[in-house]
């Protein structure tokens, strides 16, 4: 037994008390997480301030997290290298004649984007620049434009490749290949739900519709996009065939998008490359720094066995797999409001795993339920990364777009419910293609 001065209860109060007080004072989340650990590190004789440096180091010294800058870089390269432009024209010819054309294109582009980059933040950042202004100019409401851009950006972590799935697979040993396949159907269903929402909005508010594109235009746009559309098959296929690991696949995505931009579309120069690299460094720096301090926070929670104390009663409730699925989704939906998705997986995912196991929830289904719930957390206040990014590009406060965002989340929640009740929604594709990966 370790000799601890504090017991789990007071330690938890201290940790969360300091954390939330600092958040209210508007201390950045990453700093607040680090500072919340400080009193504990000083009180406990076995810990010291150096623990903070050591544990953040351990978090960053990880090959898995390398996929974060790679996927961000892929996204930045897509934007400056002409890949995004091709995919926009393809989306335009596919759904441009539906009511609310530009917003539909916004959603469809997110689907294509999700198939290439695994980062929702990157999706929100690049599509906010493309769509928010353009939609407002065409007469869409600003709050609607922000909301649909942010909400469609979450597809990037549900449709493969996905940073969250790589982190999940690395932390809670689950086959990343199986997770990728399992994310496809839920991702497309959520995209469908968003398109229905856009349709309803567009009809009600009279948003503009473009004329239908001709077959020639469609063929032409498709032909130009084929090299880009090939990316998800390269990445997912490469992992399933054992050509490369998940992190390496993110690097392959970078190399492929450099090759496309430089040799096929020929739109990238030295200056654009530098900007892409710098923007990637900026965003991954702040996002991953937070992962480090969150890891220390999670490490201290585990040190006091706080999560186990919290969940001690839950296992006696006698839940079945469906009830447990709803419970897990609920926990992640709440946690996702306050924490970024990767720290949430680190702190909560590992804690919920025994519960999922005990009710015989399939590990892959468990992962997808959690990841989809956390994806919703990317747009829920107060800490919804994608919504924050979209609002900051639009130059408004977070609360401005909350109402429309919440309305859009309702149909998406239906998909989450279906995901919990029907295991086949997530398990159908992996069972069909790689039954061996499901054990």
């Amino acid at each position: 037994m370790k000799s601890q001065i504090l017991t789990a209860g007071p330690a938890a109060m201290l940790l969360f008390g300091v954390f939330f007080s600092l958040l209210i004072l508007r201390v950045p989340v990453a700093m607040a997480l680090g500072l919340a650990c400080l009193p504990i590190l000083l009180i406990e004789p076995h810990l010291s301030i150096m623990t903070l440096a050591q544990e953040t180091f351990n978090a960053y010294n990880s090959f898995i997290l390398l996929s974060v800058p790679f996927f961000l870089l892929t996204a930045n390269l897509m934007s400056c290298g002409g890949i995004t432009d091709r995919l926009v024209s393809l989306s335009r010819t596919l759904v441009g004649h539906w009511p609310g054309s530009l917003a539909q294109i916004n959603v469809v582009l997110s689907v294509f984007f999700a198939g290439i980059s695994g980062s929702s933040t990157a999706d929100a950042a690049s599509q906010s620049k493309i769509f928010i202004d353009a939609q407002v100019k065409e007469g869409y409401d600003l709050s609607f434009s922000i909301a649909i851009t942010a909400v469609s950006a979450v597809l990037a972590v549900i449709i493969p490749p996905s940073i969250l799935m790589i982190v999940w697979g690395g932390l809670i040993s689950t086959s990343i290949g199986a997770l990728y396949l399992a994310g496809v159907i839920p991702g497309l269903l959520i995209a469908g739900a968003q398109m229905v929402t856009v349709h309803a909005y567009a009809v009600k508010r009279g948003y503009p519709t473009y004329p239908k594109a001709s077959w020639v235009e469609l063929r032409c746009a498709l032909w130009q996009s084929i090299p880009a559309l090939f990316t998800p098959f390269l990445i997912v296929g490469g992992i399933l065939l054992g050509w490369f690991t998940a992190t390496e696949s993110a690097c392959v995505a970078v190399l492929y998008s450099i090759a496309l931009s430089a040799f096929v579309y020929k739109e990238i120069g030295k200056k654009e490359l530098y900007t892409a690299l710098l923007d990637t460094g900026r965003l991954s720096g702040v996002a991953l720094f937070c992962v480090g301090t969150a890891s220390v926070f999670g490490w201290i929670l585990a040190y006091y066995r706080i999560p186990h104390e919290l969940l001690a009663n839950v296992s006696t409730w006698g839940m079945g797999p469906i009830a447990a699925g709803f419970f897990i989704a609920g926990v992640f939906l709440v946690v996702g409001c306050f924490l970024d998705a990767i720290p949430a997986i680190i702190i909560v995912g590992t804690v919920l795993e025994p519960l999922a196991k005990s009710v015989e929830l399939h590990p892959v289904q468990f992962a997808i339920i959690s990841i989809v719930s956390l994806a919703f957390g990317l747009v829920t206040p107060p800490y919804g990364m994608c919504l924050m990014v979209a609002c900051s590009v639009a130059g408004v406060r977070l609360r401005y777009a909350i109402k429309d965002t919440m309305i859009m989340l309702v149909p998406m929640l239906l998909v989450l419910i279906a995901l919990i009740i029907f295991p086949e929604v997530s398990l159908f594709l992996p069972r069909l293609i790689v039954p061996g990966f499901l054990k």
Partner: protein
Amino acid sequence: MPSMPQPTAWRRFTAAYAKLLEILLALSVGILIIPVTLQIIARFTNIIPHYIWTEEMARFLFVWCIMIGAMVGVRESSHFEVDVWPEMSRRPEAAVRIAARLGTLALAVVFLWGGAQFTKFAFNRTSELAELPLWMIHAAWPVAGLTWIVFLGEQFLDELRALFGRSAS
């Protein structure tokens, strides 16, 4: 306080330092691609031997990359924060910002202090695979702490001016 048309030597220094960090940041992201690519190539061809240190190199460069990104993030105030306050005029806004930055400053001091111990602790150790001196990686913590203090200094000054300045524009 009269507004200064010419930036002081100190401000020029911090601006140049920030520029240097930006270049290092972009470089480290770019270089990160190399060891991982080598790793993939080595698996499929015999052009290059299967280096065992590529993964470790990638991880160590990555650590620096994150820490430099976090340093730049403080200068640009781009670390994400939760926004619960109503819209405020310039002065109360400056007061809240000062309070928030005191938090970052506290962590900066912790990183400088704890990081110095952390670096000293690693002085005679080398990494497992590439046998790099570990202090070169651990040094990122005190450097980050110091850099934050430098960048926070001028931000405090700006906010204090806004708080007590004659024109509350």
